[in-house]
């Protein structure tokens, strides 16, 4: 996030005429930024905000888009990923949208981006200070599974009553012998608030911990924003005798780049149903391919 655009109706040669910079009007952006500031001040705590209609439907990440629209500045370089890929329909549409209404530079390279909007993944390339990552959140309330009442859930957050949340983990171990929750694995932020990390694989949970980047979370339909400031403790729920662990692929390597420490997707590659394992993070995979070829040449 760089300097934000303050001059509301300034016409920018590269943005579409008729839109305010980043689509939302300045007052809306200010009000969302106020919610973001509160969220940063209380890591992991959900802040209500008045979610706006966006020119795409809920489920396309309107919460994340509104957060991005509120923090983006002309100097920013934006990366948008969906399931780790920059070239899926969702990612392409959102990137195109921001290019149109902000005229900002976009990139597929994690290292070059100042602002990253994501659905379902955290990039493999470690984030750095100064970067901001915005998560699209479908359902922000971790307590919903055990407490459907929002008032009661708010009380449980206020009183830090998170014991019931472990019932689900208890049931997992009882049924499967391990904690089976694979996505949106709940975490405690800054030793205080219980938080849903959005449906990222639990493989990505450790990346949230002590991350140098600012992490923002936007839920459009549920009208909630929350945040993890840089260098904040993020701990995945577990039991003393069943510690949290991430997925592994029995020493499988990406069949493109050979990486053994990235998150792998199993994909069907032809009509015969042949499958292979490849990196879910396409930018990372490309980067590893280049590294490999440089190593070959030297």
């Amino acid at each position, binding site marked *: 996030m760089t300097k934000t655009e303050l001059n509301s109706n300034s016409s920018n040669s590269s943005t579409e005429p008729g839109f305010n910079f980043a689509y939302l009007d300045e007052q809306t952006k200010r009000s969302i930024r106020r919610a973001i500031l509160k969220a940063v001040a209380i890591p992991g705590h959900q802040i209500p905000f008045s979610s706006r209609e966006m020119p795409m439907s809920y489920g396309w990440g309107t919460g994340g888009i509104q957060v991005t629209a509120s923090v983006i500045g002309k100097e920013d370089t934006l990366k948008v990923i969906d399931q780790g890929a920059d070239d899926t329909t969702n990612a392409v549409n959102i990137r195109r949208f921001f290019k149109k209404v902000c005229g900002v530079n976009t990139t597929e390279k994690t290292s070059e981006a100042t602002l990253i909007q994501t659905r379902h993944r955290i990039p493999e390339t470690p984030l750095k200070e100064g970067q901001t990552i915005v998560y699209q959140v479908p359902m922000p309330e971790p307590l919903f599974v055990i407490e459907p009442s929002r008032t009661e859930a708010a009380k449980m957050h206020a009183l830090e*009553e998170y014991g*019931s949340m472990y019932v689900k983990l*208890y*049931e997992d171990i*009882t049924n499967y012998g391990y904690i089976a929750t694979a996505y949106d694995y709940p975490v405690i932020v800054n030793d205080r608030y219980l938080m849903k990390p959005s449906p990222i694989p639990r493989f990505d949970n450790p990346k949230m911990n002590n991350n140098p980047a600012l992490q923002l979370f936007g839920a459009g339909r549920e009208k909630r924003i929350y945040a993890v400031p840089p260098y904040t403790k993020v701990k995945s729920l577990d*039991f003393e005798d069943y510690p949290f662990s991430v997925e592994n692929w029995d020493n499988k390597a990406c069949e493109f780049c050979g990486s053994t420490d990235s998150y792998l997707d199993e994909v069907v590659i032809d009509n015969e149903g042949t499958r292979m394992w490849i990196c879910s993070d396409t930018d990372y995979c490309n980067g590893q391919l280049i590294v490999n070829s440089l190593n070959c040449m030297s």
Partner: protein
Amino acid sequence: MKPLLNINRLSKTYGKLKACNNINFNLYPGQVLGIVGESGSGKSTLLNCIGSNLEIDTGEIIYTNSKNEILNIKQLPEPQHRKLTKTEWGFVQQNPRDGLRMNVTAGANIAERLLNVGVRHYGNIREEAKYWLEQVEIDTNRMDDFPHTFSGGMQQRLQLARVLVTKPRLIFMDEPTGGLDVSVQARLLDLLRSLVRNLHLSVILVTHDIGVVRLLAHRLLVMKNGQMVESGLTDRVLDDPQHPYTQQLVSSVLINN
């Protein structure tokens, strides 16, 4: 001996209806107090008021906790209050659906009270759950089954196990034998009697069944139209009832049985 619980001029109305009108009594450690009266006399309302499921209109509920601190329940800050109801107190609901999570296993139902107080060791939680299932005479092979596969009597005993796992000092029970077959009732009553004695529990028990209090209660409180019309040692009240309403209650039992 100091009372565990002191109820002082407690009143509760529903609109114009005085469901509990100026109730006073003390409960002493290790004592089982039976609240009897016909249907609609205000027994459940009184129990729910004392057990903090309902807000009272006027009066005081004074509780002496395990650290010997005297707490005015109405003035207790909410975090301590909620903690109290999840540790030192236990409520066994008339309808097991209100006291259990039906969509998680029996073991998880017991585990939850331990998880609420910060226990985070799965193996230890399993051991505790097993122990308390045994104490309430539920086959430990049923630990990973859902409560809706249990009989009514088992569900009541599971509620007990769930409550007992935090070693409560005070237990509230609303018609614990209601809706159970006579033979199942007898077994539950025997179990309750031995648990109360062995664990030195204090209990407030609501029932319309005089037979239940004769077996379990040390003292009785007789309610009629929201008022306490008589109270005293169980044997005295049942063998020599003073109030005409109590006389009627006791004699109708003699006729029915």
